[in-house]
């Protein structure tokens, strides 16, 4: 078994227990054994980690990483994504079917889980493919996928365009008590678009992704969640229209959750003026008014969670012109710092709130262990230096995808260590 750990001199930040104070943490047998243990309770031979100047928080949980293995290993493997996640402070990630074949069978779930276990990085939870073969028409064997270990269902990275399928699946999944994740977009309205549709796209002559392509899908999603009483999560969202809709239905007591990507909280469509493919992300970077609204929505919990939006693509694929280049971003290793720079630095959120949106809330939405420093819970922990500024250098990424809109940018907030089941699996140099 792992060496017991004592983490001391840091600040414990745990939204699940409303904990925000100096303290120390004892980890034994892969679980959190004690908070502020008495000296007599310390275990002989335990490793002491000095977390001076750092936050000690529950490991981050990512609600949506696009998995590329099997099928597109040139973009990212299960091994590299699980280590990229750790370096970004994520101890658990939910991985969806950016794969070929999609994860719609017991065997496919098993493949991912085994590879993930061998990787010894972050925990990878499988989001099963909602429709058979990802065809968007017929339900996959959701019950059997649940038995195999899938924690949620989605057609992501694709949208679920078929209203009847989504309705049936929301009904059916009530029995399984698993959430459905929809990536909200009406394909017909978004077809061919490469960036936010607005003044900038008009001037650049690039085909736009109109906000209503997302707004309409969110409106449909929340209405079906209400009608079926199903568990639904929409995200990532990127528009004022989505926020407005979510705010209204939440005020009526309808249970639905939503997430946003950190880059959509910081950058606007003006970046596309450089025509660089590293800004071609999905959902697209929107105009500043949307960015501002999204930040406020994270503050007031209209948007529950922040997800990395990691969509790895190989360097070759990202080297083409903007029409040919796929949407892609390596964001696991910048997500926390981006969110901290966009939200904590200007005082919109405090660290407790940010950890809530990136750990506690996503763990609850996904219905998985995590998001807490509760005694007896798995010791999935991240240490964060909240004041450290660093320059983003994609060549230092653990991810095999190096396309990032933050290349060369200075961000504040750095992951110094990540612990999974009581084992230190990542330590910054």
């Amino acid at each position, binding site marked *: 078994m792992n060496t017991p750990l004592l983490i001391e001199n840091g600040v414990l930040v745990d939204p699940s227990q409303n904990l925000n104070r100096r303290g120390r943490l004892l980890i034994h047998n892969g679980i959190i054994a004690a908070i502020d243990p008495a000296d007599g309770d310390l275990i002989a031979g335990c490793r002491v980690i000095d977390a001076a100047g750092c936050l000690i928080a529950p490991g981050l949980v990512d609600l949506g990483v696009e998995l590329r293995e099997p099928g597109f290993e040139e973009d990212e493997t299960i091994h590299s994504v699980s280590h990229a996640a750790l370096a970004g402070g994520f101890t658990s990630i939910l991985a969806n079917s950016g794969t070929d074949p999609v994860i719609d069978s017991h065997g496919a779930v098993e493949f991912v889980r085994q590879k993930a276990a061998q990787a010894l990085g972050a925990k990878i939870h499988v989001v099963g493919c909602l429709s058979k073969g990802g065809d968007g028409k017929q339900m996959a064997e959701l019950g059997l996928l649940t038995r195999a270990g899938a924690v949620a269902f989605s057609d992501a990275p694709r949208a679920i365009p078929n209203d009847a399928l989504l309705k049936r699946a929301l009904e059916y999944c009530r029995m399984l008590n698993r959430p459905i994740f929809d990536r909200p977009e009406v394909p017909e309205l978004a*077809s*061919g678009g490469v960036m936010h549709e*607005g*003044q900038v796209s*008009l*001037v*650049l*002559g*690039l085909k736009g992704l109109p906000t209503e392509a997302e707004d309409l899908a969110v409106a449909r999603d929340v209405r079906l969640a209400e009608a079926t009483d199903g568990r639904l999560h929409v995200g990532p969202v990127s528009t004022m229209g989505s926020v407005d809709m979510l705010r209204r239905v939440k005020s009526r007591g309808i249970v639905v959750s939503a997430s946003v990507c950190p880059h959509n909280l910081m950058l606007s469509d003006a970046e596309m003026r*450089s*025509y*660089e493919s590293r800004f071609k992300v999905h959902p697209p970077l929107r105009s500043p008014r949307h960015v501002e609204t999204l930040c406020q929505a994270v503050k007031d919990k209209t948007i529950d969670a922040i997800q990395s939006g990691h969509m790895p693509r190989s360097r070759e694929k990202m*080297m*083409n*012109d*903007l*029409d*040919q280049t796929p949407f892609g971003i390596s964001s696991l290793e910048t997500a926390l710092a981006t969110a901290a720079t966009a939200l904590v630095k200007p005082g919109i959120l405090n660290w407790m709130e940010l950890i809530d949106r990136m750990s506690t809330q996503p763990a609850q939405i996904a219905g998985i262990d995590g998001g807490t420093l509760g005694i007896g819970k798995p010791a999935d922990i991240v240490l964060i230096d909240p004041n450290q500024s660093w320059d983003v250098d994609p060549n230092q990424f653990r991810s095999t995808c190096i396309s990032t809109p933050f290349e060369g940018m200075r961000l504040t907030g750095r992951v110094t260590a990540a612990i999974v089941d009581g084992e230190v699996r990542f330590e910054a140099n």
Partner: protein
Amino acid sequence: MTEPDLTPFVQRWHRRHLLDLESLSAEEITTLLDVAQVLKEATDGCRRKLSLLSGKTCANLFFENSTRTRNSFSLAAKRLGADTVEFGSSGSSVSKGETFADTAKTIEAMGVDWVVTRHSTPGTANLLARELGCCVLNAGDGPHEHPTQGLLDLLTIRQHRGSLQGLTVALVGDIAHSRTARSNIWGLKKLGAHVIICGPPTLVSPRWEELGFEVAHHLDEILPRCDVLNLLRVQFERQHARPFPSVREYAALYAMSASRMQRAKDNILIMAPGPINRGVEITPEVADGPHSVILEQVTNGIAVRMSALYLLSAADRLNAS
């Protein structure tokens, strides 16, 4: 024939690439037009050859089909004594899967001074300017810009009216998919013209109003105010879904016809960037009528391209020294 002295113009020009008109100042556009005018006259209407650029090589790198722009650039280079290399995308390494940037780097490595590029995607010229060491001229990047087309339109108007200041110029038709429209919009605005952008709402975004331009949907209403009409081709090939019910309906609403001409000013200039769809944007009697300057535009195309090649090359030389 003596070579013209262009030194005073060269001192006012510092760019190595011509990517768009949006980022140029009014002074820079005027310099381009002035040099075009001098070179047009020095070549006897773009018909005679000078040796201003002899020993240099211009590569035409067209990833999208073109006849007039490509030949116009070739002739412009040759009229100034430069050599040309032609490169098309069909049957080339692009169809074998090479990225456009790699293709461009290969051509550059053969030792060229300018790359003239056309591509179906906006921003490709900007990307090449960053990747390549030579001068880059944008000959059309998707619906973004086509700066030399904008310049030749400006030059043609200036030759007829002396100045753009205060003129009302309407761009009519498929604005959404038109690079010519975008280059005209910025060029006209910078030189002081009043720009009206006219077409059906599916092809003319209301956001142009937010950017300070007049937007109109009814040609007949604006026609009496216009000094110049620039009739843009309906780009069927770029439209994902037909933005109007039928060609017949479009022609009824927007085609410049003899009967519409009666509502226009007596000295109106009728322009079209071509290729023209006769009977769609313009009827034959107007295209071939006394107000049409369509063929002058073609000649001026060579003049502005000579100007651009010359000025970029001069800036490049200054940069190197």
